[in-house]
């Protein structure tokens, strides 16, 4: 297992603004896996991501990337923030090319690489458009495309669909499901939506306490490719109830 481990957190603790957010937390993500981290809102989920991508350093414990201790992680993890954060003065293809430009590719080379990928993200016709011409769902796809162009196996997705309306959200979830089957990337996904986590993940880590001390692991074994109608299956509903009561149980302890 150690060989194919892409991300490993070992006994990690983190204080942020004088507050203990994470207390000796351990978990790992294996190559090709889609793992969701499910925690109630305001539970420091985004802070965990800032720690994994290197913006914050844990106070104790170790973070491993591809099996090795990684003291500096900036530039080594593909990060898709909650807001799309597209630059309004750059076209879609220019926005997607930013990580490549930072990695040292010339504008021309970066443009060529982006061109090849636009199709897979349903953005081919909008390469020369500016972000304000795109719908929320499409902007998130540009943001994901940008994240995939960083030089890393691991992608961190921080509640990417939380700002979208219901229908667009379902469309984007289905699109992401199909994309994952094609691309086989390793994804750590943060959400507070149980249904979304169940629909997308191979494994769900549920945290129900503050600070986050331990996570309860749920394996999600629905066959892929999945469809959003899965959410009406009895097993799906059952798991959803179970996870909800686990989440609520933890909150009641406080």
């Amino acid at each position, binding site marked *: 297992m150690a060989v194919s481990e892409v991300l490993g957190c070992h006994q990690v603790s983190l204080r942020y603004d004088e507050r203990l957010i994470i207390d000796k937390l351990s978990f790992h993500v294996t190559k090709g896996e889609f793992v969701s981290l499910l925690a109630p809102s305001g539970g420091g989920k985004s802070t965990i991501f800032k720690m994994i991508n290197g913006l914050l350093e844990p106070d104790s414990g170790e973070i491993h990337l591809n099996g090795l201790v990684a003291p500096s992680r900036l*530039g080594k993890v593909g*990060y898709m*923030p909650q807001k799309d954060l597209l630059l309004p003065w750059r076209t879609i293809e220019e926005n997607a090319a*930013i990580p490549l430009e930072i990695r040292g590719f010339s504008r021309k080379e970066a443009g060529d690489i982006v061109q090849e990928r636009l199709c897979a993200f*349903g953005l081919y016709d909008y390469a*020369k458009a500016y972000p*304000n011409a795109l719908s929320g769902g499409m902007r998130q796809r540009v943001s994901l495309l940008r994240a995939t162009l960083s030089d890393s196996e691991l992608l961190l997705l921080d509640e990417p669909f939380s700002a979208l309306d219901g229908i667009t959200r379902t469309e984007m979830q289905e699109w992401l499901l199909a994309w994952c089957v094609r691309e086989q990337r390793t994804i750590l996904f943060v959400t507070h939506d149980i249904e979304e986590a169940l629909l997308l993940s191979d494994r769900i880590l549920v945290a129900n306490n503050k600070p986050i001390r331990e996570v309860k692991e749920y394996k999600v074994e629905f066959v892929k490719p999945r469809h959003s109608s899965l959410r009406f299956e009895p097993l799906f509903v059952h798991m959803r109830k179970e996870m909800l009561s686990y989440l609520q149980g933890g909150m009641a302890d406080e």
Partner: protein
Amino acid sequence: MNSNLNDLSLKKKRRQGRNQTFNPSKHNVLLWFILSLVLVLLLWELLCRLMNVPAFLLPPPSEIAKALWNLRTQLIGEHLPTTLQEAILGLAISIVLGSGLAIWMRISATVEKMIYPYLIMSQTIPVLALSPVFIMWFGYELPGKIAIVVLFTFFPILVGTYDGLKRTEQEMVELFQTMGANRRQIFTKLQLPSALPHFFSGVKVAATFSVSGATVGEWLGASEGLGYFGRRAAGNFQAPNLFATVVLLSLMGIIFFLIFRWLEKRFVYQEAREEKRK
């Protein structure tokens, strides 16, 4: 043209975008302005004639136009180039120094702490009162005038650029950091372009101030220039001549402003630009 038909919200957005670019009301604005200008001038002319206002107090527009025509070689051939030169040179120096200092303040925290109080103070000091000091230091020749134009235009540019550089969203900076960007890359790819609109707001204000600066410089002592000519005309109660210089000076300010607005439209990201593709 639109192959991705399932994305309805996108189509809607693009339609809105098109309405923004094709804007028939823009022509109406200009039309109404011309109409109101003609009305104001007519009223002014009528008022002067009907009430027999002495020309040395308020000359009618026709007198001003006559003065402009009669003095055209002197005004446009001799005095205008002088003032234009002072304003342009002063403004250019301010753009270089102002944006340069703003960038330096963003790069070095020490410089920022040292300069920032002056930035606040500069908003309260009447630059007009400082102008004679500058003439004392830099003399009655061209350098003195340029110094006063710099005095008038430096702070709007500094404040605009500094504000713009400061306003880059922290989330954006962090995103760039997670991509492994160094400080130089964050600066050139993120902070500089996002400061550009604020830089241009500052420059547009400064562009109109530069004309005032040049005029004040000439009032304080000169042998040519529109400010000098206007002041001499005022001293001799030649109101039509004075008004003629005022007309030229304000035209100069407007043209400066329009030039920088054009440059802004050219170089700063515009909402409507997306329609240019295809």
